[in-house]
């Protein structure tokens, strides 16, 4: 059979990086084909080349057997290639139909768009109300709008870039059902992901990328997570040692934390209650954008407007305390954004060590020898791959910078460590190392609060789980009692009924 899409020797160089190096890829008609690779392996670059958003430096691209040059996304759409980006491009204030209509040929009227949306939606189980404004939709519904929009172009190949990173487990299942139905109708699907389970569940074939090169092409259903992981990173991550311990005293005690948002697109915090004890890891699950940023800022002290008495650290009311004061009490925080928040991009690692470590400051003067020794120690202790303490933070890879930032806080012997997305964008080896570091800290009696989008990760390291949805926080549940389904339901904010029912029973 002639492949729907065939890439031959595709290479793309950015200043300083070879993002794609002679990549081959074949997608058959009606096939769900995965492109697997860790962050920075070159998946996004490859997809952009196929969709005409980037041009390859070398190699050929064949569409139904004929060589083509795809100069722009419009040209890709004309060929029959549709794309659903990881970050949606929808206008919040417009209705679903208007958003879809904007991307359509202008020969159609808005009325036509509405009927066609209804047709496509019912054919593939993508229920969306065309009249609803986008800002009232959940993330899963927004993604459905994007898929509908792509499907209205009658694509022969649909590309999805990490589509499940924003979905609850239930929404993910619905998406998979839709994709299977599309494939059965003959549409090829290029599915970009770094999640092994999903690929094994959904995809017929899988091309694995490592450092810009194809490291294997396999049938995922016949592989194990371990074998896929070996192809993806060249090694298997070591298993984590997670022993149960009796947690100690309450370290962080949050009661009645309600906070109006500062930005018009933020999420209001509503009556948050939470406690974290010494020697335990509490995981915060939830689709991002449900108030995690706001909660973290209120806890770290970057936003010190919380109502008095709502945040207690070792019994001290710190709701209105600044960052430095909380840090003196033993609270340390690793933010999600590494460059620009956790570290100043253009400054050296030594200078970045100074951001939260004032050990090398005496009477207002910086002792640079001591600062460089501190940075050097962090680099050695946490296995940060960097030429030295004078290297600029921005020249490190995401994983190495994360090891440095986390190391900077861990090395300060925190009593409460709050970590946001500890392993997002970090390669698998470094991620395992980071999780191990967190558990070790827990075993030393530190209290940990970990906010993550990766449910697997939370299940792996947490003792208790809470779920955040629409600015509220669920009651906590022991990880051993929790299931992915339950947490998934809670992620849509449905724990209230659950708790109410339990009270009635």
């Amino acid at each position, binding site marked *: 059979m002639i492949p729907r899409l065939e890439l031959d020797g595709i290479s793309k160089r950015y200043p300083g990086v070879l993002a794609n190096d002679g990549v081959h890829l074949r997608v058959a008609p009606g096939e769900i084909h995965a492109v697997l690779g860790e962050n920075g392996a070159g998946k996004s670059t490859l997809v952009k080349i196929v969709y005409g958003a980037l041009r390859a430096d070398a190699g050929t691209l064949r569409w139904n057997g004929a060589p083509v040059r795809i100069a722009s*996304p419009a040209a890709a759409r004309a060929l029959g290639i549709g794309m659903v980006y990881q970050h949606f491009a929808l206008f919040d204030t417009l209705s679903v139909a208007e958003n879809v209509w904007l991307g359509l040929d202008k020969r159609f009227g808005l009325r036509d768009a509405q009927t066609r949306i209804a047709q496509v939606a019912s054919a593939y189980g993508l229920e969306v109300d065309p009249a609803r404004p986008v800002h009232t939709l959940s993330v899963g519904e927004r993604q459905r709008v994007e898929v509908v929009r792509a499907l209205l172009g009658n694509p022969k190949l649909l590309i999805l870039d990490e589509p499940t990173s924003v979905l609850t487990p239930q929404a993910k299942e619905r998406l998979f059902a839709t994709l299977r139905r599309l494939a059965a109708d003959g549409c090829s699907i290029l599915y970009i992901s770094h999640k092994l389970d999903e690929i094994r569940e959904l995809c017929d074939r899988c091309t694995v990328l490592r450092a810009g090169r194809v490291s294997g092409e396999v049938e995922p259903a016949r592989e194990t997570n371990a074998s896929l992981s070996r192809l993806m990173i060249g090694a298997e991550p070591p298993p984590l040692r997670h022993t149960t311990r009796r947690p100690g005293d309450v370290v962080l005690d949050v009661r009645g934390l309600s906070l109006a948002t500062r930005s018009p697109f933020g999420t209001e915090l509503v009556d948050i209650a939470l406690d974290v004890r010494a020697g335990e890891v509490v995981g915060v699950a939830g689709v991002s954008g449900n108030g995690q940023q706001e909660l973290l800022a209120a806890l770290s002290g970057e936003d010190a407007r919380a109502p008095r008495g709502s945040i207690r650290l070792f019994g001290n009311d710190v709701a209105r305390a600044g960052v430095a004061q909380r840090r003196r009490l033993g609270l340390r925080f690793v933010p999600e954004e590494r460059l620009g928040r956790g570290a100043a991009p253009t400054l050296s690692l030594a200078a970045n060590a100074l951001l939260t470590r004032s050990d090398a400051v005496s009477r207002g003067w910086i002792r640079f020898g001591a600062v460089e020794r501190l940075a050097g120690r962090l680099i050695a202790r946490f296995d940060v791959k960097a030429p030295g303490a004078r290297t600029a933070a921005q020249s490190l890879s995401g994983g190495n910078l994360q090891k440095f930032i986390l190391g900077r806080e861990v090395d300060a012997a925190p009593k409460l460590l709050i970590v946001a997305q500890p392993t997002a964008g970090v390669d698998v080896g470094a991620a395992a190392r980071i999780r191990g570091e967190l558990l070790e800290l827990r075993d030393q009696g530190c209290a940990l609060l970990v906010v993550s989008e990766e449910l697997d990760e939370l299940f792996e390291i947490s003792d208790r789980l809470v779920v955040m949805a629409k600015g509220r926080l669920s009651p906590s549940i022991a990880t051993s009692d929790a299931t992915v389904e339950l947490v998934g339901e809670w992620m849509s904010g449905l724990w209230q009924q659950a708790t109410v029912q339990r009270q009635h029973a």
Partner: protein
Amino acid sequence: MLELEPRAQPSRALSLASPLFALALTVVCGAVLFALLGKDPLRGLAVFFVEPVKNLYALSELSVKATPLALIALGLAVSFRANVWNIGAEGQFVLGALGGGWVAMQAGPATGAWLVAPILVAGALGGMLWAGIVALLRDRFNANEILTSLMLVYVAVLLLGWLVHGPWKDPHGYNFPQTITFLPATRVPRLAEGLRANAGVLIALVAVAAFWVFLFRSWRGFQLQVGGLAPRAARYAGFSSRGALWTALLASGGMAGLAGALEAAGPLGQLTPHVPVGYGFAAIIVAFVGRLHPLGVVFAALLMSMFYIGGELAQSRLGLPKSLTGVFQGLLLFALLACDALVRFRVRWRSRPEPSRA
């Protein structure tokens, strides 16, 4: 079409040499300009680049103009590094002159030379007061400091005009808008007889060292710069952005005020409506040409001072308008910005634009 593409690793050596390239470009453009104006380019360039440094007297004159430029630019370098855009140093300079001038006018026949110290302190306080208004407006009402500091320049100039036309006018000055001439005891001591260079030069050199230590060795200076480079990292670290705002504005305002007092109690010796001559604005160029670095500021101040003197000489020797000074200053800044852009980006020719995203 032409496109700028970021370089992976901008060369550090080129980035340091960029001001020198800019200077070379300025010289070339200047030569072309003289040729177009029908003057001998070599003679024209000599007026700008040789005459101002050819003997001790010329060097002394150079220092008279370079001193206020360097003092103001040092403060601005701190302010700009903190991402606080104080462009109203001209007004703070005027307030410094007013503060210093007021103290100087209190002197009696018996007053000793010790009064110079209070004059300078009053000048610095005057500049800090003016910049403090900007800080207060930003802190309390989030008013953009670029606008407020600039608008306060005009207020300062009007205030000076009102004082020298009204309450501070010299009663024996034939109704000219000027104050009394300050008593000799209150004048900033000169370095040598017959030269106008005064103790301000030494103050500027001490200030260079002090600002270097503040920026590169002090905890407060570090916090301030992190606030400018990565504001969210500074907030995460717990560095006070309000503290940085006030420090930046009070430091830059204080330095501009000090320069104003040195000018009033130095070369001017009285207050007239002509106290502001643009040092406060020229110092912005000095700060950037000097890479916001205290040592760089010294060289940049000397260069800008050469342009001032060169412009005056071009008027008298070559019969060219004095506005040539501004042309040279502008050429230098423009060339510097172009060189900086080329150090950080490479120019690429593309046959057709490449759409980046749908």
